[in-house]
């Protein structure tokens, strides 16, 4: 087989998303945009993990008429990264929700979403 394998596109996209998210977190001043940067990093990591679990020519790890149990070992992609990513998505959602509620609190007390207005703990 020649050419670039299909999963490396997903891998490259995931890595690019991580870098874009990191750039956003480092350069943006608005707290909401920093949280969006975090969410991008999160999504990028999920894409990297799923694409690493891909097996050449594999299909979804669900046993049915198309993929009988006897052939499953040779025809499905690795179910483990998918399961781990499912966990990671839920944890990421929980972390994002807590970050957003911190943003709401900061906006309530300071009437501003800029990180420059929270400079007490800056070194």
């Amino acid at each position: 087989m020649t050419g670039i394998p299909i999963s490396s596109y997903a891998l490259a996209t995931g890595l690019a998303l991580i870098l874009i998210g990191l750039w956003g977190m480092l350069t943006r001043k608005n707290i909401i945009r920093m949280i969006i940067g975090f969410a991008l990093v999160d999504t990028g990591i999920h894409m990297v993990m799923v694409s690493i679990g891909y097996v050449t020519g594999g299909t979804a790890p669900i046993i049915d008429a198309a993929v009988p149990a006897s052939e499953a070992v040779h025809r499905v992609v690795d179910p483990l990264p998918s399961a781990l990513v499912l966990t990671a998505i839920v944890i990421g959602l929980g972390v994002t929700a807590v970050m957003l509620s911190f943003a709401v609190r900061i906006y309530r007390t300071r009437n501003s979403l800029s990180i420059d207005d929270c400079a007490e703990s800056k070194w």
Partner: protein
Amino acid sequence: MIKRVAVIVTLLLVAAIFSDLLLNYTEQPVLGRLGEYYAAKGPSELGAANLVTSVIVTYRGLDTLGEVTVLFISAAGVGLLLRRRRDEADSRETRPAASEIVQTAAQLLIPMVFLFGIYVFINGHLTPGGGFQGGAIIASGIMLLVLSQPLAALSHRVIGMTESLSGFTYVVVGVLGIVLAGGFLDNRIMALGRFGTLFSAGAIPIIYILIGLKVGAELGSVLDRFRSAAGGQSR
């Protein structure tokens, strides 16, 4: 200026770490050893057609219990952070009602969205989907309700009862696994049934129903907290 250089250097260093992963990446031709075990033994051992489900609910069930706990803690944290002080007004009172179109569409769609969520988590062992996905769909139904009727009060008592009862039953099912089968969260406490049918895979459908209810209730309460907190700044 220094800050911009520092940002660029940081990004380049992170990219250098990743470049090795990307440049030397080769697609694996066969499953790894653990994946091979799950694919070969999963269907006959646990009876779940969806291998990802058998990994999440049974082989790595303890991880999932931890995950549900993290979600619970984050929902509790959101509730703590966004609680209103007594002098703060509920921002809902100043919000205009949604338009007739949104309200009518919501009345039509909400039962269907809930039904679809329930379908997704009941069939989690057969089709792509499961408790977390179904719970998220149910929460999106709650979101639609919140958008169409800003003044509607969700019953925190019902949400709290659903959430804590399903969490408690989840742990009880897990402990029953120690008593009746091979270990904590073992799904073989019930007959495995005929492979590929709705009533199969032992306790996996029950656990996924519980997870679906719990996740739906938790995400719903998070959405409700954000609704009553939005714009409610101190004055």
